[in-house]
């Protein structure tokens, strides 16, 4: 067993890329500012010096162009890592991911494999307003042919990214700019976390909270607070959104009888809806209360800090939602947004 050390989320991601690139010369990193600038968020710091311009490739601001280049290169056997400076910008390349990357294998009757990772930070950031602050995983998880991975801890960041790079499918790998400095124990060397496996980050008997990425930490804080009142929350970190680890989710909810899904994205047609559908169908008889979801408000992200705080799930809102599930609290009042669901 390799010795764990404390490193940042950012370093863990870099370690995964560096180790994989050392192992396999067909892997390269391409994106805006990944080389000479050392990464817009310093994830790729030092990689240009280590691998040279052939394998750490700065691109112009042309997401459609370099996402497509990655797909073409993967079609004939390379294993590209395509970095989006943020997932917000991936929307200009959405056609490449949805129509090309996701469908090539199926349309060609399995003649092509597409081992490519699209990675970068996503989700809400601080005070950057509507176009730079949004959780888009449901858009990608909707599409058959794509895998969607969202690590929440440095150890998972390393292990999942290594697994994603080794996977023979297009993988959407969503990090978070506000988690890059997060520290945690990470095994040195070979540490691979298989895709498609959720992880119980905190065991508990009363309520299952299903969450992922940044919301894991929000949920863990809430669980600590609830524990002081004797409420034991099981916090389940999905880690991979697609394929979804149905077994672990259902197993947990069968034990607790209650399920809350906490997601950073918008409520309508989000991942939480899919998880709740699964829970209702597979654990209906064991449920002691209707499953609930806590999401962001159904609005584009506002800039003003007081409004931004209002939009996002927070530990106290998770606490309230759990207490509500247990019948300990009335439905809290939050502003209703246009067409909004709670």
């Amino acid at each position, binding site marked *: 067993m390799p010795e764990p050390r404390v490193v940042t989320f950012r370093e863990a991601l870099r370690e995964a890329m560096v180790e994989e690139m050392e192992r396999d010369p067909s892997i*390269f990193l391409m994106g805006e500012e990944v080389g000479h600038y050392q990464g817009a968020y310093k994830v790729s710091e030092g990689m240009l010096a280590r691998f040279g311009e052939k394998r750490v490739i700065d691109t112009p601001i042309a997401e459609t*162009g370099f996402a*497509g280049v990655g797909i073409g290169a993967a079609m004939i*056997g*390379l294993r590209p890592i395509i970095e989006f400076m943020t997932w917000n910008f991936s929307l200009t390349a959405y056609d490449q991911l949805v129509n090309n990357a996701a469908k090539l294998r199926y*349309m060609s009757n399995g003649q092509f494999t597409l081992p490519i990772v699209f990675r970068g930070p996503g989700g809400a950031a601080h005070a950057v307003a509507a176009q730079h602050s949004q959780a888009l995983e449901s858009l990608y998880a909707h599409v058959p*042919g794509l895998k969607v991975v969202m690590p929440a801890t440095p150890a998972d960041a390393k292990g999942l990214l290594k697994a994603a790079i080794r996977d023979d499918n297009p993988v959407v790998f969503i990090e978070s700019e506000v988690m890059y400095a997060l520290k945690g124990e990470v095994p040195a060397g070979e540490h691979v976390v298989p895709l498609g496996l959720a992880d119980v980050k905190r065991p508990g008997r009363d309520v299952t909270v299903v969450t992922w990425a940044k919301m894991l930490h929000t949920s863990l804080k809430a669980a600590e607070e609830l524990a002081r009142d004797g409420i034991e929350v099981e916090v389940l970190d999905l880690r991979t959104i697609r394929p979804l680890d149905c077994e672990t989710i259902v197993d947990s909810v069968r034990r607790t009888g209650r399920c809350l899904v906490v997601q950073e994205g918008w409520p309508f047609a989000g991942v939480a809806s899919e998880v709740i559908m699964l829970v209702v169908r597979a654990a209906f008889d064991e449920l002691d209360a209707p499953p609930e979801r806590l999401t962001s408000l159904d609005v584009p992200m506002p800039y003003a800090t007081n409004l931004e705080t209002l939009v996002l799930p927070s530990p106290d809102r998770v606490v309230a939602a759990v207490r509500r599930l247990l019948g300990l609290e009335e439905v809290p009042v939050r502003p209703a947004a246009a067409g909004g669901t709670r």
Partner: protein
Amino acid sequence: MDASLLLDLYRSMALCRRFEEAAAKAYTQGKIRGFLHLYIGQEAVAVGAISAAESTDYIVATYREHAHYLARTGDARAAMAELYGRATGASGGRGGSMHLFDAGKRFLGGWAIVGGHVPIAAGVAFASKYRDEKDVTLCFFGDGTANMGAFHEGLALAGLWKLPVVFICENNQYAMGTPLYRTLSVPDVAVRARGYPMESEIVNGDDVLEMRDAVRRAVERARKDSLPFFIEAKTYRFRGHSMADPAKYRSKEEVQKWMERDPINVLGQRMQTLGIASAEQLRALDDDVKAQVEDAVEFAEQSPLPAPETVTEHVYA
């Protein structure tokens, strides 16, 4: 003049023409469904270009790609079976007319969102260069692509990174039903190549030999110097945008004028003038091709449908 080369080119173009005529017939009979975009009239572009490349060079094409597939693979059976949605088709019945693939013969699609495949072609060329392989990528697209963002981003990266890719614009004068002068701000699509920069050449796309020579020069250049090249082939589609389009936006006179440049007739007459083949020999060759297409139709009709239990296969590797 190499007689066997001319005979091969003639046969290849005739195969494309007869294949698509048979496909159109099957479409009107309801045997082929969905979209069917015919290339009739433009055959010299694909046949000339692909004949100029090595069989190890990569082809990336659009949704109007029957001729490109046939020029590369010669496999009329797999193409027709795909149009029929059969398990024996080029893409197992999952792709249809717009998504023909043959990985083994380096025929990389069959892409149906205008412009979306241009960066992909650049990426294939990127991979060849990355691995120090000398293969060149041929990327086909229509004039309607020239205003798409993906087209410009693909060309920009190919120019910036000096990728060995030959972009071949099949300028058939219409972006679906809208004439070029109403959709393009410049007289020739080739003008667009200058800014990236890459050399370009405007070619009579109805002359298979001119097409072949131009693409051969471009491919050699791309291979030797690792540089992109842009070719604009002026041509015309004799039919509508797809089978659903009666092409009423064009005058009979205009269509007639272009049909006088029918690439198959042009080559046939040249071969007769040069004494390479008599009218009778060309007819016999055409009959031979017709028999090949009939065989392909028969093969498609006899082929099994894709097995229902396979519907979820190949979503993931």
